[in-house]
């Protein structure tokens, strides 16, 4: 029942704190895979948790559990919307929600990108990606195939850059922790 996309924080609260099904290390490991792979974070997390605990059946059950309640609600709303879409108050309400969502998405993007928005090479990659998609209208697959490998190359192994080693320091994990409390 994660309104507003805080599913991952709820997952951590429940799986690590209450059920004790996995430790923080396991949770963060799963989080790293989820963030790097395509797809919704919460869905990827459900797959990994389910698979690690109970194999493919566990993964399937977790994903259905993650998506089913929201699917029912969104479809009820969708059907109500179809029969009321010309109601001016409904239109205004949905427009206000979209405007509020812009504030929410901005805050979430800023928070997830806290580290990246402070480092010059990362800022350059963010800017190039944003300009390519939003202004130059480069197709997404081309952006991923073009900017992705360049960015990975910038962080290639054995570059004498302090940040590349950050990943292994304990305080880094602590820093990431902080993110999931929000």
């Amino acid at each position, binding site marked *: 029942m994660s309104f507003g996309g805080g599913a991952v924080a709820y997952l951590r609260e429940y799986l690590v704190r209450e059920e004790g099904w996995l430790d923080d290390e396991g949770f963060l490991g799963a989080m790293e895979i989820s*963030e790097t792979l395509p797809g919704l974070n919460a869905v990827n997390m459900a797959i990994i948790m389910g698979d690690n605990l109970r194999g493919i059946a566990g993964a399937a059950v977790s994903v259905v559990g993650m998506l089913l309640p929201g699917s029912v609600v969104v479809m009820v709303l969708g059907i109500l919307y179809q029969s009321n879409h010309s109601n001016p*108050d409904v239109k205004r309400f949905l427009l206000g929600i979209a405007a509020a969502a812009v*504030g929410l998405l901005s805050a979430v993007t800023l928070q997830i990108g806290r580290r990246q928005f402070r480092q010059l090479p*990362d800022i350059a990659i963010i800017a190039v990606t944003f300009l390519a998609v939003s202004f130059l209208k480069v197709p997404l697959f081309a952006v991923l195939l073009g*900017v992705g490998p360049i960015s990975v190359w910038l962080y290639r192994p054995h570059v004498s850059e302090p940040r590349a080693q950050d990943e292994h320091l304990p305080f880094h994990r602590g820093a990431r922790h902080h993110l999931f409390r929000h």
Partner: protein
Amino acid sequence: MTRLIHLFLVFSLLSVLAVGGGTAVLPEMQHMTVHTFHWLTDAQFRNIYSLGQVAPGPNMLMVLVIGYQLAGWAGMVVVGIAFFLPDCIITLFVNRWWVHLGGWPWRTSIQRGLAPVAIGLMTSGTYAIARLSIINVQTLGIALVVFGILLWRHVNPGVLVLLGGAAYVLLS
């Protein structure tokens, strides 16, 4: 039938391109559904996106409503499978394979390198919704207030979003 096939192809492509999650593919989804295939208008896309904000669970479940709007229940099922299944299969395989990559130095490089790309794409997704919804002073105000509140302290975002909708009904 052709439409179902198109829906399947479009949403499964979006699924595998969703590096950085749902927000990251919003511009491409808008482009394809509004401009390439003319399935929806900008306003319809924005309204359906808003429905996803109100429902519990991942916001991107709103793709089900897009499928339903375009091709009824069959459309909903096709879009749901196309948008979620490819990612699930990829994640399942990579999860089993990932542990074997523990000592592989490029693993960290891929994580570090894709992170700013994902954030750039999320920025574009945010911008796409902003272009559709920030149309006057009131909508700009709602976005700024929500942004400010969330930076200031942790409030349930779902409640804020609903209040944003209610505020605009009262303000306009």
